[in-house]
């Protein structure tokens, strides 16, 4: 083997080792770096139901029930296909609102209710002044009423 060939073989070997390592790391990420599961995945038993995990989705419209004289709150997380009831005691982030994104960590109790010990708000990538948001909302409402009529 000439030194030039040796060098070439060395580089090829290095590059293929690198490619294999990258593939393995990405593969591991794929299965482990899932930050949260959707309600549909939970219903389909794809989530590790016997362990603590996170569910993510939108807070279902009209589902928030606050208990008087305490920090306990019930709500439902939905991905518009399935919905999971959640109970949580504690302080909620400011962005926690009906129809907005949420990620809750906890366990599913025997009665099927997800008992969360941490609730985080997940916001979207849209930034605009309140007037613009209001105009958009009104436009959407106008469109809806014209569709139903």
């Amino acid at each position, binding site marked *: 083997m000439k030194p030039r060939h040796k060098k070439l073989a060395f580089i090829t070997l290095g590059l293929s080792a690198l490619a294999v390592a990258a593939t393995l790391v*990405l593969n591991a990420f794929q299965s482990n770096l899932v*930050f949260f599961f959707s309600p549909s995945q939970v219903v389909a038993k794809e989530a590790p139901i016997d362990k603590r995990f996170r569910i993510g989705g939108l807070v279902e419209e009209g589902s928030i029930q606050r208990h008087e004289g305490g920090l306990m709150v019930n709500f439902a997380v939905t991905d518009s296909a399935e919905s999971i009831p959640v109970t949580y005691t504690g302080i909620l982030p400011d*962005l926690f609102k009906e129809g907005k994104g949420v990620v809750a960590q906890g366990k599913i109790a025997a009665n099927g209710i997800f008992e969360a010990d941490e609730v985080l708000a*997940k916001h979207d*990538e849209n930034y605009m002044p309140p007037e613009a948001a209001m105009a958009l909302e009104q436009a959407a409402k106008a469109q809806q009423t014209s569709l139903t009529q």
Partner: protein
Amino acid sequence: MAINWFKYSSPASFYSLAGKMIPIFVIAATIFLIAGLYIGFFVAPTDFQQGEAYRIIFIHVPAAWMSMFLYVVMAFWAGIGLAFNTRLSSMVATAIAPTGAMFTFLALWTGSLWGKPMWGTWWVWDARLTSELILLFLYIGFMSLQAAIDDPRRADKAGAILALVGVINIPIIYFSVQWWNTLHQGASVSLNQSPTMATTMLWGMLIMALASWMYSIAMTLMRTRVIILERESHTAWVSELHQKEIAR
């Protein structure tokens, strides 16, 4: 008139060229920084869901962009230095690393300050945040590896290999919000769709990004000049320069 660009790949001529260019980039960085911060904090409107807290975006996003971009530039020059054995390219790569690490830290830090009031947590181990933290470790690893090897040529080679291997992390950071479920939201500004931001907000962010560019170029040139002096201290032109400085 053709300019002989290769002339500037010699450390001696690059040294004097960089010296002339630094003030231009420092002035540009200052102007863009003042304009960007003014637009960001006084002109741009309040956000409809995050209120005033979203304004950290004007520092966070340019810093995060810069952290990824500088890594690619650093790896590029390190790779050129490795492939063609050009001394100046490796010096530029070494000069970029601290600025890149600074922007990575800034992105993580401001992101944490933003995460607490909005998400309800300083830190989560989601794909975006974790891969950006790995980027910080890559920068620190590059700098410590180079610092640990005494012979500068060998340090350049070892650093270049590390830098090139680490490039794999950049698309992972960028696409993490698309590939996996993350707490971090998707991109507001991307190449293949229109921005999901009000125009004034977008301008503030882009001008701040320009300011970071100018700052990074100025810093890289300054640091490259110091590295050139250090490594070329045995040459005739450096001692000549030294004599001139003393005579002044």
